[in-house]
Protein backbone atom coordinates (compact mmCIF):
# COMPACT_ATOMS: atom_id res chain seq x y z
CA UNK A 1 0.00 0.00 0.00
CA UNK A 2 1.38 3.41 -0.91
CA UNK A 3 1.82 5.60 2.08
CA UNK A 4 0.99 9.17 1.22
CA UNK A 5 0.55 10.69 4.67
CA UNK A 6 -2.11 13.04 3.40
CA UNK A 7 -2.47 15.71 6.04
CA UNK A 8 -6.23 15.95 5.68
CA UNK A 9 -6.58 12.24 6.33
CA UNK A 10 -4.16 12.36 9.24
CA UNK A 11 -6.22 15.13 10.86
CA UNK A 12 -9.39 13.12 10.28
CA UNK A 13 -7.81 10.15 12.02
CA UNK A 14 -6.90 12.38 14.95
CA UNK A 15 -10.49 13.61 15.14
CA UNK A 16 -11.80 10.04 14.97
CA UNK A 17 -9.54 9.03 17.84
CA UNK A 18 -10.34 12.10 19.90
CA UNK A 19 -14.05 11.63 19.40
CA UNK A 20 -14.19 7.88 20.01
CA UNK A 21 -11.94 8.15 23.05
CA UNK A 22 -13.42 11.43 24.32
CA UNK A 23 -9.87 12.72 24.66
CA UNK A 24 -8.11 16.06 24.84
CA UNK A 25 -4.88 17.45 23.27
CA UNK A 26 -6.30 17.93 19.77
CA UNK A 27 -4.71 21.36 19.25
CA UNK A 28 -1.15 20.22 19.96
CA UNK A 29 -1.59 17.16 17.70
CA UNK A 30 -2.79 19.36 14.82
CA UNK A 31 0.20 21.70 14.99
CA UNK A 32 2.69 18.91 14.14
CA UNK A 33 0.73 17.11 11.39
CA UNK A 34 2.75 18.51 8.46
CA UNK A 35 6.07 17.98 10.27
CA UNK A 36 5.23 14.32 10.90
CA UNK A 37 3.79 13.79 7.42
CA UNK A 38 6.99 15.03 5.76
CA UNK A 39 9.20 13.00 8.09
CA UNK A 40 7.28 9.75 7.59
CA UNK A 41 6.76 10.25 3.86
CA UNK A 42 10.21 11.39 2.80
CA UNK A 43 12.83 10.96 5.47
CA UNK A 44 12.43 8.30 8.14
CA UNK A 45 14.11 5.07 7.04
CA UNK A 46 12.76 1.84 8.49
CA UNK A 47 14.68 -1.14 7.05
CA UNK A 48 12.31 -4.03 6.27
CA UNK A 49 9.49 -1.58 7.08
CA UNK A 50 9.64 -2.69 10.72
CA UNK A 51 9.57 -0.33 13.68
CA UNK A 52 12.36 -1.97 15.69
CA UNK A 53 15.12 -2.54 13.13
CA UNK A 54 18.45 -1.63 14.80
CA UNK A 55 19.46 0.61 11.89
CA UNK A 56 16.23 2.60 11.71
CA UNK A 57 16.13 6.35 11.93
CA UNK A 58 14.86 7.53 15.28
CA UNK A 59 11.87 9.80 15.73
CA UNK A 60 11.34 10.96 19.29
CA UNK A 61 8.13 12.79 20.07
CA UNK A 62 9.37 14.61 23.14
CA UNK A 63 6.17 16.64 23.29
CA UNK A 64 4.22 13.47 24.02
CA UNK A 65 0.94 15.35 24.28
CA UNK A 66 0.72 15.46 20.47
CA UNK A 67 0.82 11.67 20.23
CA UNK A 68 -2.49 11.31 18.37
CA UNK A 69 -0.78 12.84 15.32
CA UNK A 70 1.88 10.13 15.53
CA UNK A 71 -0.73 7.40 16.03
CA UNK A 72 -2.37 8.59 12.79
CA UNK A 73 0.97 8.15 10.99
CA UNK A 74 1.62 4.76 12.59
CA UNK A 75 -1.83 3.69 11.45
CA UNK A 76 -0.90 4.62 7.91
CA UNK A 77 2.39 2.73 8.33
CA UNK A 78 0.28 -0.30 9.18
CA UNK A 79 1.83 -0.64 12.63
CA UNK A 80 -1.41 0.31 14.32
CA UNK A 81 -4.70 -1.25 13.28
CA UNK A 82 -8.02 0.40 12.60
CA UNK A 83 -9.24 -1.29 15.77
CA UNK A 84 -6.47 0.51 17.70
CA UNK A 85 -7.78 3.81 16.36
CA UNK A 86 -11.44 2.97 16.90
CA UNK A 87 -10.92 1.69 20.43
CA UNK A 88 -8.78 4.59 21.62
CA UNK A 89 -8.94 5.02 25.40
CA UNK A 90 -11.03 1.89 25.88
CA UNK A 91 -10.14 -0.14 28.97
CA UNK A 92 -7.33 -2.61 28.40
CA UNK A 93 -6.03 -1.06 25.15
CA UNK A 94 -2.41 -0.09 24.49
CA UNK A 95 -2.61 3.48 23.20
CA UNK A 96 -2.37 6.03 25.98
CA UNK A 97 -2.87 9.76 25.99
CA UNK A 98 0.87 10.46 25.96
CA UNK A 99 3.66 8.87 23.94
CA UNK A 100 4.66 5.47 25.32
CA UNK A 101 7.59 3.46 24.06
CA UNK A 102 5.76 0.16 24.47
CA UNK A 103 3.80 1.07 21.30
CA UNK A 104 5.53 -0.16 18.12
CA UNK A 105 7.01 2.86 16.37
CA UNK A 106 7.05 5.10 19.44
CA UNK A 107 10.66 5.44 20.56
CA UNK A 108 10.45 7.16 23.92
CA UNK A 109 7.97 7.47 26.75
CA UNK A 110 7.36 11.18 27.00
CA UNK A 111 4.69 13.44 28.37
CA UNK A 112 6.79 14.39 31.31
CA UNK A 113 8.29 17.26 29.41
CA UNK A 114 11.99 17.76 28.84
CA UNK A 115 12.83 14.03 28.91
CA UNK A 116 12.55 12.97 25.28
CA UNK A 117 15.15 15.37 23.95
CA UNK A 118 17.82 13.92 26.26
CA UNK A 119 16.90 10.35 25.35
CA UNK A 120 16.98 11.27 21.66
CA UNK A 121 20.35 12.92 22.14
CA UNK A 122 21.55 9.67 23.75
CA UNK A 123 20.29 7.67 20.76
CA UNK A 124 21.99 10.06 18.34
CA UNK A 125 25.19 9.81 20.37
CA UNK A 126 24.93 6.00 20.28
CA UNK A 127 24.53 6.08 16.49
CA UNK A 128 27.50 8.43 16.20
CA UNK A 129 29.62 6.10 18.36
CA UNK A 130 28.63 3.14 16.20
CA UNK A 131 29.37 5.16 13.06
CA UNK A 132 26.03 4.30 11.51
CA UNK A 133 24.27 6.72 9.19
CA UNK A 134 21.12 6.81 11.32
CA UNK A 135 19.41 10.15 11.82
CA UNK A 136 17.63 11.12 15.02
CA UNK A 137 14.72 13.55 14.82
CA UNK A 138 13.26 14.97 18.03
CA UNK A 139 10.09 17.03 18.15
CA UNK A 140 9.81 19.32 21.15
CA UNK A 141 7.10 21.79 22.02
CA UNK A 142 7.81 25.46 22.55
CA UNK A 143 6.24 25.26 26.01
CA UNK A 144 8.42 22.23 26.66
CA UNK A 145 11.59 24.22 26.25
CA UNK A 146 10.77 25.93 29.55
CA UNK A 147 12.37 22.79 31.01
CA UNK A 148 16.00 23.20 32.01
CA UNK A 149 16.91 19.70 30.88
CA UNK A 150 16.25 20.77 27.27
CA UNK A 151 19.18 23.14 27.50
CA UNK A 152 21.36 20.54 29.22
CA UNK A 153 20.67 18.28 26.23
CA UNK A 154 21.40 21.12 23.79
CA UNK A 155 24.82 21.67 25.39
CA UNK A 156 25.56 17.95 25.20
CA UNK A 157 24.47 17.66 21.55
CA UNK A 158 26.68 20.55 20.59
CA UNK A 159 29.69 19.45 22.64
CA UNK A 160 29.58 15.95 21.18
CA UNK A 161 29.03 17.29 17.63
CA UNK A 162 25.86 15.33 16.99
CA UNK A 163 25.29 16.28 13.36
CA UNK A 164 22.93 13.32 13.00
CA UNK A 165 20.42 15.09 15.26
CA UNK A 166 17.65 17.39 14.07
CA UNK A 167 15.43 18.88 16.74
CA UNK A 168 12.18 20.39 15.53
CA UNK A 169 10.63 22.98 17.81
CA UNK A 170 6.87 23.12 17.32
CA UNK A 171 6.47 26.82 17.99
CA UNK A 172 2.70 27.10 18.20
CA UNK A 173 2.89 29.83 20.79
CA UNK A 174 0.81 28.13 23.44
CA UNK A 175 1.34 26.01 26.52
CA UNK A 176 -1.05 24.64 29.09
CA UNK A 177 -2.15 27.82 30.82
CA UNK A 178 -1.88 30.35 28.04
CA UNK A 179 0.42 31.78 25.41
CA UNK A 180 4.15 31.26 25.77
CA UNK A 181 4.43 35.05 25.79
CA UNK A 182 2.18 35.28 28.85
CA UNK A 183 3.50 32.29 30.78
CA UNK A 184 7.27 32.40 30.36
CA UNK A 185 8.76 34.41 27.53
CA UNK A 186 10.96 32.40 25.20
CA UNK A 187 12.37 35.23 23.15
CA UNK A 188 13.92 34.26 19.82
CA UNK A 189 14.13 30.49 19.90
CA UNK A 190 16.28 30.21 16.79
CA UNK A 191 18.86 32.58 18.21
CA UNK A 192 18.93 30.56 21.40
CA UNK A 193 19.67 27.34 19.53
CA UNK A 194 22.29 29.10 17.43
CA UNK A 195 23.88 30.34 20.64
CA UNK A 196 23.97 26.74 21.87
CA UNK A 197 25.92 25.72 18.75
CA UNK A 198 23.10 24.45 16.53
CA UNK A 199 22.69 25.10 12.85
CA UNK A 200 19.15 26.46 12.76
CA UNK A 201 16.42 27.20 10.27
CA UNK A 202 13.13 28.91 10.93
CA UNK A 203 10.18 28.04 8.69
CA UNK A 204 6.43 27.71 8.32
CA UNK A 205 5.63 24.46 10.09
CA UNK A 206 2.59 23.85 7.91
CA UNK A 207 4.40 24.31 4.59
CA UNK A 208 5.41 20.80 3.59
CA UNK A 209 7.86 21.81 0.88
CA UNK A 210 9.66 24.19 3.25
CA UNK A 211 9.90 21.46 5.88
CA UNK A 212 11.07 18.92 3.34
CA UNK A 213 13.72 21.21 1.87
CA UNK A 214 15.02 22.16 5.30
CA UNK A 215 15.38 18.55 6.42
CA UNK A 216 17.14 17.64 3.17
CA UNK A 217 19.48 20.56 3.58
CA UNK A 218 20.24 19.96 7.26
CA UNK A 219 20.71 16.22 7.19
CA UNK A 220 23.17 16.41 4.30
CA UNK A 221 25.44 18.73 6.27
CA UNK A 222 27.95 16.64 8.17
CA UNK A 223 29.58 19.65 9.73
CA UNK A 224 29.82 18.61 13.37
CA UNK A 225 26.81 20.68 14.39
CA UNK A 226 23.45 19.49 15.67
CA UNK A 227 20.51 20.99 13.78
CA UNK A 228 17.37 22.79 14.86
CA UNK A 229 14.26 23.62 12.88
CA UNK A 230 12.09 26.26 14.46
CA UNK A 231 8.68 25.53 12.98
CA UNK A 232 6.19 28.35 13.31
CA UNK A 233 2.88 26.57 13.67
CA UNK A 234 -0.72 27.15 14.59
CA UNK A 235 -2.14 25.25 17.52
CA UNK A 236 -5.30 23.54 16.30
CA UNK A 237 -4.28 24.04 12.64
CA UNK A 238 -6.85 22.84 10.10
CA UNK A 239 -10.11 23.51 11.92
CA UNK A 240 -11.01 27.19 12.11
CA UNK A 241 -12.65 27.14 15.52
CA UNK A 242 -9.68 25.29 17.03
CA UNK A 243 -6.92 27.44 15.57
CA UNK A 244 -5.05 29.51 18.15
CA UNK A 245 -7.73 28.67 20.68
CA UNK A 246 -5.99 27.04 23.61
CA UNK A 247 -9.23 25.60 24.90
CA UNK A 248 -8.65 22.77 22.40
CA UNK A 249 -5.77 21.64 24.59
CA UNK A 250 -8.48 20.54 27.02
CA UNK A 251 -11.84 20.34 25.24
CA UNK A 252 -13.48 17.07 24.21
CA UNK A 253 -15.43 16.79 21.01
CA UNK A 254 -19.21 16.66 21.08
CA UNK A 255 -21.15 15.10 18.21
CA UNK A 256 -21.72 18.59 16.88
CA UNK A 257 -18.13 19.84 17.06
CA UNK A 258 -16.87 16.52 15.68
CA UNK A 259 -19.21 16.80 12.69
CA UNK A 260 -18.36 20.46 12.14
CA UNK A 261 -14.61 19.79 12.30
CA UNK A 262 -14.85 16.82 9.93
CA UNK A 263 -16.97 18.81 7.48
CA UNK A 264 -14.47 21.63 7.50
CA UNK A 265 -11.56 19.29 6.82
CA UNK A 266 -13.53 17.66 4.01
CA UNK A 267 -14.06 21.01 2.30
CA UNK A 268 -10.34 21.71 2.10
Amino acid at each position, binding site marked *: MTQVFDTKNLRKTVLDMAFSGATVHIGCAFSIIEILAVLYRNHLRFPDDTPAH*PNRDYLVLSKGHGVMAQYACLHEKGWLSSADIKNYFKNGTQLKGLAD*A*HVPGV*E*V*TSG*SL*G*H*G*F*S*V*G*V*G*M*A*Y*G*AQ*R*RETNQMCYVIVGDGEINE*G*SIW*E*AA*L*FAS*HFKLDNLIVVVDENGFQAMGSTEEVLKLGNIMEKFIAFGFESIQLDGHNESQINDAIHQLKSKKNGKPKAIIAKTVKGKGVSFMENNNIWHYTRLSSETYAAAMAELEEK
Partner: protein
Amino acid sequence: MRAAFSEALVAAAKANPNVLLLTGDHGYALFDAFRQECPEQYVNCGIAEQNMVGVAAGLAKAGFLPIVYGLSAFVPMRVLEQIKIDVCYESLKVIFIGDGAGVVYSHLGSSHQSVEDIAALRAIPNLAIYSPADRHELAYTMQTAMASSQASYLRMGKADLGDVHSTIPDSDMQAVLPILVRDNAKTLILATGAMVSTALKLASQRRDVDVYSVPCIKPIAKDQIYELCKDRDNILSFEEHSIYGGLGSGISEIIAGNIICNFKIVGINDKFSKYCGDYHYLIDYHELSHQKLEALLNN
Protein backbone atom coordinates in the same frame (compact mmCIF):
# COMPACT_ATOMS: atom_id res chain seq x y z
CA MET B 1 36.35 -0.20 48.63
CA ARG B 2 36.97 2.60 46.15
CA ALA B 3 39.95 0.76 44.70
CA ALA B 4 37.70 -2.29 44.29
CA PHE B 5 35.14 -0.09 42.57
CA SER B 6 37.72 1.30 40.16
CA GLU B 7 38.99 -2.21 39.41
CA ALA B 8 35.48 -3.51 38.84
CA LEU B 9 34.71 -0.66 36.43
CA VAL B 10 37.87 -1.17 34.41
CA ALA B 11 37.27 -4.93 34.28
CA ALA B 12 33.66 -4.43 33.16
CA ALA B 13 34.66 -1.98 30.43
CA LYS B 14 37.48 -4.17 29.16
CA ALA B 15 35.21 -7.21 29.04
CA ASN B 16 32.47 -5.41 27.13
CA PRO B 17 33.14 -2.56 24.66
CA ASN B 18 29.51 -1.51 24.98
CA VAL B 19 30.08 -0.45 28.58
CA LEU B 20 30.20 3.33 28.87
CA LEU B 21 30.96 5.18 32.08
CA LEU B 22 28.92 8.38 32.32
CA THR B 23 29.71 10.91 34.99
CA GLY B 24 28.18 14.23 35.90
CA ASP B 25 31.63 15.79 36.26
CA HIS B 26 32.37 13.85 39.44
CA GLY B 27 34.91 11.20 40.38
CA TYR B 28 38.15 13.07 39.78
CA ALA B 29 40.80 10.71 41.18
CA LEU B 30 38.47 7.73 41.28
CA PHE B 31 38.45 7.42 37.50
CA ASP B 32 42.20 7.85 36.87
CA ALA B 33 42.64 4.18 36.03
CA PHE B 34 39.48 4.08 33.93
CA ARG B 35 40.44 7.14 31.93
CA GLN B 36 43.88 5.73 31.36
CA GLU B 37 42.83 2.23 30.40
CA CYS B 38 39.46 2.82 28.69
CA PRO B 39 39.48 6.47 27.56
CA GLU B 40 37.01 5.85 24.73
CA GLN B 41 34.45 4.48 27.18
CA TYR B 42 34.57 7.44 29.55
CA VAL B 43 31.94 10.14 28.95
CA ASN B 44 31.85 13.24 31.11
CA CYS B 45 28.33 14.62 30.61
CA GLY B 46 29.00 17.83 32.50
CA ILE B 47 27.12 19.11 35.51
CA ALA B 48 23.79 18.14 33.98
CA GLU B 49 22.47 15.05 35.71
CA GLN B 50 18.97 15.05 34.22
CA ASN B 51 20.34 15.02 30.70
CA MET B 52 22.93 12.42 31.69
CA VAL B 53 20.25 9.92 32.72
CA GLY B 54 18.20 10.63 29.58
CA VAL B 55 21.31 10.13 27.46
CA ALA B 56 22.00 6.89 29.33
CA ALA B 57 18.49 5.69 28.45
CA GLY B 58 19.05 6.61 24.80
CA LEU B 59 22.40 4.81 24.78
CA ALA B 60 20.81 1.73 26.35
CA LYS B 61 18.18 1.78 23.61
CA ALA B 62 20.98 1.99 21.05
CA GLY B 63 22.65 -1.13 22.47
CA PHE B 64 25.14 0.24 25.00
CA LEU B 65 25.46 -0.57 28.70
CA PRO B 66 25.72 2.75 30.53
CA ILE B 67 27.11 2.98 34.05
CA VAL B 68 25.97 6.32 35.44
CA TYR B 69 28.06 7.72 38.26
CA GLY B 70 27.18 10.56 40.58
CA LEU B 71 27.04 11.51 44.20
CA SER B 72 24.04 9.80 45.75
CA ALA B 73 22.71 13.23 46.72
CA PHE B 74 22.26 13.85 42.97
CA VAL B 75 22.02 10.37 41.43
CA PRO B 76 19.31 9.31 42.24
CA MET B 77 17.82 12.25 44.12
CA ARG B 78 17.97 14.89 41.40
CA VAL B 79 17.08 12.50 38.59
CA LEU B 80 14.44 10.36 40.21
CA GLU B 81 11.89 10.96 37.49
CA GLN B 82 14.36 10.21 34.70
CA ILE B 83 15.23 6.93 36.45
CA LYS B 84 11.55 6.09 36.80
CA ILE B 85 10.35 6.94 33.28
CA ASP B 86 13.34 7.01 30.95
CA VAL B 87 15.00 3.87 32.36
CA CYS B 88 12.83 1.70 34.60
CA TYR B 89 9.47 2.08 32.86
CA GLU B 90 11.11 0.90 29.68
CA SER B 91 12.98 -1.94 31.45
CA LEU B 92 16.34 -0.65 30.25
CA LYS B 93 19.56 -1.88 31.74
CA VAL B 94 21.46 1.04 33.22
CA ILE B 95 23.67 0.79 36.31
CA PHE B 96 23.53 3.77 38.64
CA ILE B 97 26.32 4.38 41.14
CA GLY B 98 25.49 6.73 44.00
CA ASP B 99 28.73 7.62 45.77
CA GLY B 100 29.15 9.14 49.20
CA ALA B 101 25.82 7.81 50.50
CA GLY B 102 24.84 8.58 54.06
CA VAL B 103 26.74 11.37 55.78
CA VAL B 104 30.10 10.73 54.12
CA TYR B 105 30.35 14.35 52.96
CA SER B 106 29.97 15.44 56.54
CA HIS B 107 31.67 18.79 56.35
CA LEU B 108 29.80 19.86 53.23
CA GLY B 109 26.35 19.74 54.74
CA SER B 110 22.98 18.36 53.77
CA SER B 111 23.18 19.23 50.06
CA HIS B 112 25.85 16.56 49.67
CA GLN B 113 24.52 14.07 52.21
CA SER B 114 22.09 11.38 51.17
CA VAL B 115 19.94 9.52 53.66
CA GLU B 116 16.78 9.26 51.57
CA ASP B 117 18.01 7.66 48.35
CA ILE B 118 16.89 4.11 49.15
CA ALA B 119 13.46 5.33 50.23
CA ALA B 120 13.07 7.29 47.01
CA LEU B 121 14.02 4.33 44.82
CA ARG B 122 12.33 1.43 46.61
CA ALA B 123 8.93 2.21 45.11
CA ILE B 124 10.18 2.13 41.51
CA PRO B 125 9.70 -1.22 39.71
CA ASN B 126 12.38 -2.88 37.54
CA LEU B 127 15.24 -1.61 39.69
CA ALA B 128 17.53 -3.55 42.03
CA ILE B 129 19.11 -1.70 44.97
CA TYR B 130 22.49 -2.76 46.34
CA SER B 131 24.26 -1.47 49.41
CA PRO B 132 27.67 -3.13 49.78
CA ALA B 133 29.44 -3.17 53.15
CA ASP B 134 33.04 -3.68 52.03
CA ARG B 135 35.21 -4.21 48.97
CA HIS B 136 34.18 -7.85 48.70
CA GLU B 137 30.47 -7.03 48.67
CA LEU B 138 31.24 -4.21 46.24
CA ALA B 139 32.84 -6.61 43.78
CA TYR B 140 30.01 -9.05 44.32
CA THR B 141 27.24 -6.51 43.79
CA MET B 142 28.92 -5.05 40.69
CA GLN B 143 29.17 -8.53 39.18
CA THR B 144 25.52 -9.15 39.91
CA ALA B 145 24.42 -5.82 38.48
CA MET B 146 26.43 -6.46 35.33
CA ALA B 147 24.92 -9.92 34.91
CA SER B 148 21.35 -8.77 35.54
CA SER B 149 19.00 -7.85 32.72
CA GLN B 150 17.48 -4.94 34.61
CA ALA B 151 18.54 -1.59 36.02
CA SER B 152 20.48 -1.41 39.29
CA TYR B 153 21.38 1.22 41.84
CA LEU B 154 24.57 0.65 43.75
CA ARG B 155 24.85 2.71 46.90
CA MET B 156 28.42 3.42 47.94
CA GLY B 157 28.71 4.69 51.48
CA LYS B 158 31.66 5.20 53.81
CA ALA B 159 34.36 3.23 52.10
CA ASP B 160 37.29 3.01 54.50
CA LEU B 161 35.88 1.14 57.48
CA GLY B 162 37.65 -2.11 56.70
CA ASP B 163 36.43 -5.50 55.55
CA VAL B 164 33.60 -7.48 57.08
CA HIS B 165 34.21 -10.49 54.83
CA SER B 166 37.50 -12.26 54.25
CA THR B 167 36.71 -12.99 50.64
CA ILE B 168 34.10 -12.36 47.97
CA PRO B 169 30.90 -14.03 49.21
CA ASP B 170 29.96 -17.19 47.42
CA SER B 171 26.18 -17.25 47.43
CA ASP B 172 23.10 -15.96 45.72
CA MET B 173 23.39 -12.17 45.55
CA GLN B 174 19.99 -11.57 46.97
CA ALA B 175 20.96 -13.51 50.09
CA VAL B 176 21.50 -12.03 53.50
CA LEU B 177 25.11 -12.80 54.43
CA PRO B 178 26.33 -14.02 57.83
CA ILE B 179 28.94 -11.79 59.46
CA LEU B 180 29.05 -13.07 63.03
CA VAL B 181 26.81 -15.95 64.11
CA ARG B 182 26.63 -17.52 67.58
CA ASP B 183 24.70 -20.48 69.00
CA ASN B 184 21.17 -19.55 69.99
CA ALA B 185 21.71 -15.81 70.05
CA LYS B 186 18.39 -14.21 70.81
CA THR B 187 19.29 -10.83 69.35
CA LEU B 188 19.69 -10.32 65.61
CA ILE B 189 21.16 -7.32 63.85
CA LEU B 190 20.47 -6.98 60.14
CA ALA B 191 22.75 -4.23 58.87
CA THR B 192 23.64 -2.74 55.51
CA GLY B 193 26.47 -0.69 54.06
CA ALA B 194 28.79 1.07 56.46
CA MET B 195 26.69 0.05 59.46
CA VAL B 196 27.68 -3.61 59.05
CA SER B 197 31.11 -2.72 60.36
CA THR B 198 29.58 -0.97 63.36
CA ALA B 199 27.31 -3.95 64.05
CA LEU B 200 30.26 -6.33 63.85
CA LYS B 201 32.28 -4.35 66.37
CA LEU B 202 29.35 -4.17 68.76
CA ALA B 203 28.56 -7.87 68.49
CA SER B 204 32.20 -8.86 68.92
CA GLN B 205 32.00 -7.65 72.52
CA ARG B 206 28.90 -9.69 73.33
CA ARG B 207 27.81 -13.29 73.20
CA ASP B 208 24.14 -12.92 72.50
CA VAL B 209 24.05 -11.08 69.15
CA ASP B 210 24.10 -12.38 65.58
CA VAL B 211 25.00 -10.02 62.74
CA TYR B 212 24.01 -10.43 59.11
CA SER B 213 24.71 -8.09 56.23
CA VAL B 214 21.99 -7.17 53.74
CA PRO B 215 23.80 -6.11 50.54
CA CYS B 216 20.68 -6.34 48.42
CA ILE B 217 17.90 -4.05 49.63
CA LYS B 218 15.65 -4.81 46.68
CA PRO B 219 14.62 -7.44 45.88
CA ILE B 220 14.97 -8.32 49.54
CA ALA B 221 15.50 -11.90 50.74
CA LYS B 222 12.04 -12.30 52.24
CA ASP B 223 12.11 -15.99 53.10
CA GLN B 224 15.60 -15.91 54.54
CA ILE B 225 14.89 -12.83 56.64
CA TYR B 226 11.69 -14.40 57.93
CA GLU B 227 13.59 -17.54 58.98
CA LEU B 228 16.34 -15.51 60.66
CA CYS B 229 13.82 -13.37 62.55
CA LYS B 230 11.20 -15.84 63.66
CA ASP B 231 12.67 -17.12 66.97
CA ARG B 232 14.40 -13.99 68.24
CA ASP B 233 13.68 -11.90 71.27
CA ASN B 234 15.14 -8.73 69.73
CA ILE B 235 15.72 -7.66 66.15
CA LEU B 236 17.48 -4.49 65.09
CA SER B 237 18.13 -3.09 61.64
CA PHE B 238 21.14 -0.78 61.15
CA GLU B 239 21.51 1.60 58.22
CA GLU B 240 23.12 4.96 57.50
CA HIS B 241 19.85 6.10 55.96
CA SER B 242 16.55 7.48 57.14
CA ILE B 243 14.51 5.22 59.41
CA TYR B 244 11.78 5.70 56.81
CA GLY B 245 11.79 3.71 53.60
CA GLY B 246 15.12 1.91 53.84
CA LEU B 247 16.30 -1.49 55.08
CA GLY B 248 14.30 -1.25 58.28
CA SER B 249 11.12 -0.62 56.34
CA GLY B 250 11.86 -3.58 54.09
CA ILE B 251 12.33 -5.87 57.09
CA SER B 252 9.24 -4.55 58.85
CA GLU B 253 7.19 -5.36 55.75
CA ILE B 254 8.36 -8.96 56.08
CA ILE B 255 7.76 -9.44 59.80
CA ALA B 256 4.62 -7.33 60.21
CA GLY B 257 1.70 -9.64 60.82
CA ASN B 258 3.95 -12.70 60.84
CA ILE B 259 6.30 -12.47 63.81
CA ILE B 260 5.79 -11.03 67.27
CA CYS B 261 9.05 -9.59 68.52
CA ASN B 262 10.84 -6.45 69.66
CA PHE B 263 11.95 -4.76 66.47
CA LYS B 264 13.90 -1.51 66.35
CA ILE B 265 14.80 0.38 63.18
CA VAL B 266 18.10 2.14 63.76
CA GLY B 267 18.94 4.88 61.26
CA ILE B 268 18.84 8.63 60.74
CA ASN B 269 15.92 9.71 62.84
CA ASP B 270 14.14 12.02 60.38
CA LYS B 271 16.40 15.02 60.73
CA PHE B 272 19.04 16.88 58.76
CA SER B 273 22.61 17.31 59.95
CA LYS B 274 22.46 20.64 61.69
CA TYR B 275 26.15 21.16 62.36
CA CYS B 276 29.43 20.88 60.54
CA GLY B 277 31.83 18.19 61.66
CA ASP B 278 33.71 15.09 60.61
CA TYR B 279 32.09 11.79 59.71
CA HIS B 280 32.39 10.32 63.18
CA TYR B 281 30.98 13.47 64.75
CA LEU B 282 27.90 13.29 62.53
CA ILE B 283 27.45 9.57 63.07
CA ASP B 284 27.40 10.24 66.81
CA TYR B 285 25.08 13.24 66.29
CA HIS B 286 22.66 10.92 64.53
CA GLU B 287 23.05 8.35 67.34
CA LEU B 288 24.66 5.73 65.13
CA SER B 289 28.05 5.60 66.87
CA HIS B 290 29.42 2.54 68.62
CA GLN B 291 28.95 4.23 71.98
CA LYS B 292 25.32 5.24 71.39
CA LEU B 293 24.37 1.87 69.97
CA GLU B 294 26.08 0.03 72.82
CA ALA B 295 23.86 1.95 75.20
CA LEU B 296 20.86 1.04 73.09
CA LEU B 297 21.75 -2.65 73.16
CA ASN B 298 22.26 -2.58 76.93
CA ASN B 299 18.74 -1.30 77.31
